[in-house]
């Protein structure tokens, strides 16, 4: 969106940070050739799940930002409180819980040595050997393995096991919490996750990619070359895009064709002025008369005649019932204008020569294993990786679990598939 437009429509920039990640995932998906994605951005305090279908981020009619309802279309994001800083605890009847309290970045996980003493998801990952204390996180945070273990000891005692077992339990519970968010954006909305590609990002997300894919029955995980900065890259690489909406509120297909076409033409004229030379697409937000949530459907060849049929098909696909089988109304008409960015700036650093993996001992799914360690983001194309393996980058670390195999793509991304 041009800066002038942004200034006049500041509310439409709300949540642009998290959305940047979704856009980044979408751009990466396009480069790799995967158009249907589930994305998971795991940060310090929470994890955000989102859905990309046919290369488009799923949007819903409204959202709430800081308690203020925002009646603007926005990217569907479901948030759960499971992040690297989420605190693990044991309740009085002996159940292991993760979150909702978080140590955030300050005081942060115990292993950050910034004053935190409570055990977090990051401490568990370190204790399992997934993170390397020899390398500072994001070049600045030195990890203290002893502090992580100390913080986990009370959990281990309460569960009646050792520290590695407590750490395994914490990552398993965190995975279950995140799987809930992924299911809310997929199964609860009529989308079968098994056909989608999981894109885990954020500093900690790619550690959980394989485990989450297992929980949802997914077969493919796409690890970005720089998962920790995918949001920023996404914003830079995103196509310039303007989306214009006009309320119409008409019966679909009831002799209103000229009014509908006129509404689209007006939006397209406006869009052309904002973003000259952009390609435009016509969409319509529809519902059965009486419903309170709309489904957005694209117009085939820009023709309004097929709206009703497209909506009926979309409603059936999503809810598996035909609603009232009654009149369909168009609530809004919508035009999306897009001008591609010059080139997807995925920011790959090409390493020198052909890297060979290092080795490290770690614990994956309760098993002690010897895992390969590869440099994420610097791998030449077509390198093959067999789990268990760690892909260690400056901004994030990925875990390739036993039973998964990876191939490095041209872009530096790693495509993981079940072996």
């Amino acid at each position: 969106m041009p800066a002038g437009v942004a200034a006049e429509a500041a509310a439409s920039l709300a949540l642009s940070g998290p959305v940047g990640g979704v856009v980044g995932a979408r751009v990466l998906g396009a480069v790799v050739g995967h158009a249907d994605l589930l994305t998971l951005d795991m940060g310090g305090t929470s994890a955000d799940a989102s859905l990309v279908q046919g290369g488009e981020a799923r949007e819903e009619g409204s959202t709430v930002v800081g308690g203020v309802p925002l009646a603007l279309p926005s990217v569907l994001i479901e948030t759960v409180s499971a992040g690297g800083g989420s605190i693990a605890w044991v309740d009085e009847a002996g159940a292991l819980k993760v979150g909702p309290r978080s140590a955030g970045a300050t005081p942060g996980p115990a292993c950050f040595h910034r004053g935190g003493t409570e055990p977090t998801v990051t401490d568990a990952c370190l204790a399992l050997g997934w993170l390397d204390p020899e390398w500072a996180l994001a070049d600045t945070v030195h990890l203290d393995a002893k502090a992580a273990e100390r913080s986990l000891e009370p959990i281990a005692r309460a569960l009646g096991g050792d520290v590695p077992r407590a750490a395994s339990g914490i990552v398993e519970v965190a995975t279950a919490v995140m799987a809930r968010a992924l299911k809310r954006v997929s199964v609860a909305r009529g989308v079968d996750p098994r056909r989608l590609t999981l894109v885990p990002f954020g500093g900690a997300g790619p550690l959980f990619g394989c485990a989450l894919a297992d929980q949802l029955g997914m077969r493919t995980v796409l690890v970005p070359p720089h998962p920790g900065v995918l949001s920023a890259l996404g914003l830079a690489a995103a196509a310039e895009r303007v989306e214009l909406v006009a309320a119409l509120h008409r019966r679909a297909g009831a002799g209103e064709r000229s009014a509908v076409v006129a509404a689209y033409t007006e939006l397209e004229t406006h869009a052309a002025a904002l973003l000259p030379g952009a390609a435009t697409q016509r969409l319509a937000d529809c519902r059965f008369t009486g419903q309170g949530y709309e489904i957005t459907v694209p117009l085939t060849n820009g023709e309004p005649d097929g709206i009703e049929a497209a909506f009926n098909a979309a409603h059936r696909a999503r809810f598996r019932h035909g609603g009232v089988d009654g009149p369909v109304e168009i609530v809004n008409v919508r035009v999306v204008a897009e001008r591609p960015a010059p080139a997807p700036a995925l920011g790959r650093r090409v390493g020198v020569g052909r890297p060979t993996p290092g080795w490290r001992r770690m614990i994956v799914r309760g098993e002690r294993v010897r895992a390969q360690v590869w440099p994420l983001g610097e791998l030449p194309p077509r390198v093959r990786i067999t789990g268990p393996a760690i892909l260690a980058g400056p901004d994030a670390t990925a875990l390739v679990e036993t039973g998964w195999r990876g191939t490095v793509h041209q872009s530096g991304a790693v495509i993981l598939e079940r072996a």
Partner: protein
Amino acid sequence: MTLDPVAREVMGHAFAGIAEEMGLVLIHSAVSPNIRERRDASAALFDAEGDMIAQAAHIPVHLGALADAVQAVRAERPQPGELYILNDPYAGGSHLPDLTLIGVIRTADGIGGYSVVRAHHSDVGGATPGSMPAGARELFAEGLVLPPVLLTPEVERMVFANVRTPEIRRADLAAQRAAVERGAEGMWSLAARHGWAFVREAARALMDHAEARAHAVLSRLPLPSQGSVAAVDWLEGDGVSDADIAIQVAVSVKDGRLHTDFSGTAPAVPGNVNCPIAVTHAAVLFVVQTLLGEGVPMNAGVARTVQVTAPEGCLVHARWPHAVAAGNVETSQRIADTVFRALGAAGVPVPAQGQGTMNNVTLGAPGWTYYETLGGGQGAGPGGPGASGVHVGMSNTRNTPIEVLEMECPIRVRRYALRGDSGGAGRWRGGEGIVRELELLVSAEASILSERRRHPPRGSAGGGDGACGINLKNGAPLPAKANFPLAAGDILRIETPGGGGWGVEPSPTRSNA
């Protein structure tokens, strides 16, 4: 097989996630404002024995009550894959507008559990539009009664022939059925991953865990080890007579279980403030849930720690065919208030009373019906003031946005505001009630079911009482419960009660000078 704490927690999230998904499917495709906007609905999963595994927490009054619906269906010897409907308050229902769909989850060799969705439909026939008639004297005046029956196309046709807005019911029921199917699919995919034996075992483990948590909390309550603590509170008439109706309870904790004995409560009344025992159970369970705090899963394990005794035939254990429409929405509030009051008398730190009513407003005429409940003041607690303009206690619905109301119904909203100075004074003030003024654009039948119009929500620990609510038609007062006609241009104004204050107000007191 015993489940370790990690596997149990992981499965707890999986079950809770399925219940949430069921709720999302329902509200995203239902058409009536009461379901899609106010979310007057609940979704839950049960195991094959009929014990609740998980519930999407929408409405407290549905909490424990859904278990009775599943038991009523089990008594019909259901077959795998069948879908039942019921609303009979004397066979698993709550009040007639709550239509409950129960899907029997199929496994390879039997029943894997039950997927249950209850939603309040804003008309199920009966004497007045909206099926919440004040002063109904028999169940039959409140709408069509559905015992647990298979939801066949024939039954659907019969339902649609008996309601005022059949097209809306058809769509809402379709949404409800889709939500039930989502529940079954969720369980199938869990079983495909883990096997039914493990799923069953996990469900039992979660119930045992919740029971242990509830036991621990209840055992710590400062209730006398011998005898019990009693409290009494009143309903302000039944819509037939204006006389107060006593609800009495004696509360004790024995062996880590909360015993509530309602002996001494008034007999069931002619009007419709009676409760089937399922609703009374739900109200007590709600109180227990507020005591449990964070992270205790709401399932059948918690219900095992609650014992409810009520003489058959009394207000809170009514017998067929007493009318019950307001029992679910108003009496349930008072039952919870009375139990809280007893706990408070024993020294449990409970908040001051909230508005204690749902302020049910039902409007309708041929072709449309509308039902809403209104928020009010929350009681203040030892830690802070009460929230203003919210649903408290047994109701957990949202409001209907003005834009939606005006688009859907021939009603204009003239005023929707907080009601100043209605919260009780104190160290912490009670929350404010609200003022809602509706202008009718056509003539319609109206029905109001409300409470706390003469007995105010009480303050606690020296705090002041909240203001009583007021119902007005064109400026003239109406009773707490009334059926009456409205003409085009008439103005209905509801002022909802404020919450009680907590603690003595620090001096100098607010000056009126």
